[in-house]
Every structure is written in structure tokens, then in C-alpha cells.
């Protein structure tokens, strides 16, 4: 559902008023249907707490957490950063209007505070990002690999991920049967 424009300003004011400018926030109406609140990664817990627990907002429903690796190959000015971008989507449990919180992490040693005490599902979403992107969530209850086997090396969704030639003795590539009958 489209987020009312009035709410947007209210939210920006709210973040400012509650934290007296201690939280760096910026509201962008992205070309998504949902507004995006850009914040500094160290303020994530404060903002999430406000968004989830404030009686006027009540975005208690966590839709998803998404992470992206922004590699050097990226030449887009709107996201001019090398590192990791975290994208949290929260929804209001009453009318299901959504709000996104976006923050960026540095390329080396990406770290962010966990939000798994705000939502029962956050831990799994975080584990997925830890597994596939290698973002470390500080103070998490349970941060293990979720999709890949525990002995896996590397984080595949990073843009610089390189696959080995074998995994546990199983070759990772296979030539097509078409090559065997190719006429040169």
C-alpha cells in the first residue's frame, strides 16, 4: 500500500525529535512504491526500535532483510559506494503500508548490530545474509551458515566469489554433451 506522504514527514520529524539529531537519517522517496529511510549503520537499533515500538508507527511486521554487495564494477552515482548495502523492509500490521530502512556497510569487515530481538524471524533473515554475503551481525543469538554446508568456503553472493574446481571430490563444472559431437 502506498505510504501517505504526510506520514513520511512525520517519520523524519519523529526520528529527529526522538534522537535530537543524534541519528543521521534521510528520507528518500525511491522509485519503489515504498519510502526509504537512509540511516547510518551504527544507528540501526535505535531506528528499528522507534519504527517498531512507537505507538504512531507500529511497523511490527518485518517483511524481509536483503543485502547487496556493491562491487567496484558498479558505476551508478545514486549508490556510489563500495561495500555492502542492507535493505530492511518493515510493514505496519494494521494497513500493511511498508517502509524500508537502508544502510551501507564498509567493504572490509562488514558489521552491523543484530535486530533479532525485535522480530522472531529476523534471526533467519540475518543468517541468510551472513551465509551468502558474509555480513557479521553483532550480538546475534545464533549466527551460523543456513543455506550452505558448514564446511563451505567463501560467500557466494559477493561479486568477487570464485568457485573452486571441486567440492568434496565432486567436480563443479561439466562439459556439455554437445561438445563431444561438435564438428570443427
Amino acid at each position, binding site marked *: 500500500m502506498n505510504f501517505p506522504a504526510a506520514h513520511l514527514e512525520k517519520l523524519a520529524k519523529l526520528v529527529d525529535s526522538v534522537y535530537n539529531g543524534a541519528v543521521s537519517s534521510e528520507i528518500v522517496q525511491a522509485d*519503489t512504491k515504498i519510502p526509504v529511510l537512509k540511516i547510518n549503520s551504527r544507528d540501526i537499533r535505535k531506528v528499528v526500535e522507534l519504527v517498531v515500538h512507537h505507538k504512531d508507527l507500529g511497523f511490527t*511486521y518485518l*517483511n*524481509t532483510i536483503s543485502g547487496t554487495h556493491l562491487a567496484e564494477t*558498479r558505476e551508478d552515482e545514486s549508490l556510489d559506494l563500495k561495500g555492502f548495502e542492507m535493505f530492511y523492509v518493515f510493514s505496519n*500490521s494494521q494497513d500493511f503500508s*511498508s517502509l524500508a530502512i537502508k544502510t551501507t556497510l564498509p567493504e572490509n569487515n562488514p558489521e552491523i548490530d543484530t535486530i533479532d530481538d525485535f522480530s*522472531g524471524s529476523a534471526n*533467519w533473515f540475518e543468517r541468510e545474509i551472513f551465509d551468502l554475503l558474509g555480513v557479521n551481525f553483532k550480538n546475534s543469538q545464533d549466527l551460523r551458515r543456513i543455506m550452505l554446508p558448514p564446511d563451505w568456503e567463501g560467500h557466494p553472493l559477493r561479486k568477487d566469489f570464485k568457485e573452486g574446481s571441486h567440492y568434496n571430490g565432486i567436480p563443479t563444472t561439466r562439459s556439455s554433451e554437445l561438445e563431444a559431437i561438435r564438428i570443427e
Partner: protein
Amino acid sequence: MTSATREKELKPRVEITQISGTEIEVNMGPHHPSTHGVIRFILFIDGEIVVRAVPDVGYLHRSIEKIAESMPYSFFMPYTDRVDYVAAINCNLGYALAIEAMGGLEVPERATWLRMIGVELNRIMSHLVGVGALPLDLGAFTPFVHALREREHMMDLLEILTGTRMNNNYIRFGGVCQDVDDEFLKKLEKYLDHFVLFLEEYDRLIGTNKIFIERLKNVGIVSGEKALSYSFSGPNLRASGIGLDLRKVDPYCFYNDMKFDVPVGKGIKGTVGDSFDRYIVRIEEMAECEKILRQILSKIKEGPIQSKVPKKLVLPAGEAYHHTESARGELGYHIISDGKSASPYRIKIRTGSFASMTSLAEIFKGMMVADVIAYFASLDIVAPEVDR
């Protein structure tokens, strides 16, 4: 039901403290007849009671999100089928709508109607697997065969509509891949008459069965608050008494014009949000799908099925999070485009099953081992949707 009897029913049959034996670690899955696909639990049990459970997923992690980054937008469409193979067109639709919103593409009216036919048929088929596999996991084989027979009829319809039985790859950006003639619409209408009778019969087959009810009622109760906290969506969330349906609150396609109810769990046999509610919500939702399909049939008009879409689609730089109501809940696509290449920079797929899985560890605590199966089956989880 009076509150006293209700208290009594809610009480666990065996107190955990009564058994003081040692904890045994039991491994369930990934190959287990009653896990939906390849999902594994490690159960720490004391007697019959689960003390602690560790769900383990990823046995079907097929790296769909990584593959998306290496190919053009249109090539990724067949892969979305495999995200949720039981409701493939739903996944197609979510992806197509997200791309169309980002690229500003138009969809002809008839194409939207055809999409909705595909989506609703697929939703019925998906729920049929859900309510069919549930008694199967509880030990009753026959209802599953009934559900499969009905799915075969629907697959015949999908075959005419899309050309394949499963993994249809039906929807294209700005349209659908093929048109149908009036004969199909008549066939569908005729089939819907049959389906209403079948649904009634199926509910009579197991929905009234005493043993079935006893196995499900008051098992795996997820309250509304908890369901929201675990990011439940779709039928699982509605079974917990929260009537959120993205087709109603955030309408896409022509769902605005459709008249249908959103069934919610009322706890008719036990408590709101128990496993039986999850069963009955799916049954009621199938009836609603049938209503929607009839309305579509009365409104569908002739017209083009594909708008003009550039051959090499390059989306403007930016990102979108677009969600639709799939058969298993909110299906969200978070797509980032860098504005230069013809392939997405990143696609993240948010699925209903993954969110439902997050509840397992806590809900399993204190449950009987047999109820673990009942609760898990009632969630109607499909493994590739969890792992992707």
C-alpha cells in the same frame, strides 16, 4: 466451549517435568517421507516430548539469486518458476509485475485477465497439495490421492492455457506467452462447477473426520501476535486470525474489482491459530479462488495479449521492492538495477515459506513428536521456496 474445558484441552497431556530421562538427539530428514521436500530437523527429545529443535535447511539451495545476476531480465523468468514449483505462475507474476513497475511497461487488459486465471488456478492447485499432503503426513493416504486426481484435471486446463503441466513460464514482460480460445473458457467454467462439488466432498472426506480433527486441533497454536513476529504471511497468517491479504490491502492486476472474502481462522474446533485453522483456511480460500475465477470468466474480453517491449530490456537505475500474494504468502522481489547492463544487479526473493520456517524452533518446544509432523505439515512449506 466453556473456558474450563478449554483450559483442560490446552494443557499438555504430559508435563515435561514428569519425564526425567536423558535427552536423546533424533535426526529427522532430509530424506523423510513426511517432510515437504528436503528439510531436516534435529530434535532433542525427552521421551515423547521435544525439548529443543534445530531446523536445518539449505538442502535445496540452488543459487537462483546468483544466477539472476548473470543473465538478462527475460532469461530469469523460467527460474522464477522453480522458486515455488507448486505455484509457478504466482512467482512469474510477482517478478513480471516488479519489472513492469520499474521499467514502466504496459500490460494489455486481456493479458492481465489471463494472468489472473493462471494465478488463481495455480493457487487452488497449490492449496490442494497443502491440504492433500497434510492428511498424508498424519497417516491417511486416501485424501492425497483424491487431491492428486483433482490436480490432474487442473493440470489439463493449465496445459491448454500455458502448454505445460508444471513450471509453466507463462508470463512475459508486458503480457503472456500465448492466448486461449473460448473453448478453454467454457471448459474452465464447466470444471469449476465440478470443483465446487469436489471441494465439498473433500471437506466431508477429512474435514469432519474425528481422528483428523483430534490430531490437529490445539496443536501448534500460533497467536496473531506471534504470527506477525515470525513474519508469517498468506494462509498461515490468516489462520492466526489476522486477515491480511495483499490482494485486498495492496491490490495489483484487477483484484480491486473482484469481490471475494478473506477467510480467517476462527478456531472452530479448538483455538485460533491452531493447525486445524490452517487447514480450514486453505479449504475456504480455494472456494474464494473459485469465486474469483468465475468473475474473471464473466469479465474477460478479446484483445491483444502482448504489449511492445524492447528486445534488450535495460531498466533505469534504482531499486524496487514489489510484493504479491502467492499461494504461500507474501512473495517479494527486491530488484536492484544499475541502469547500464541488461541483467539485474541483485535480485532477492522474499518467500512465505522461509518466514514460516522461522517459527519452528520455538513452536516445536514442548510438543509431542507426532505433533511436530502435524504442525509442520499444516504450514504447507515447499522446500525450494525456503532455500531458493
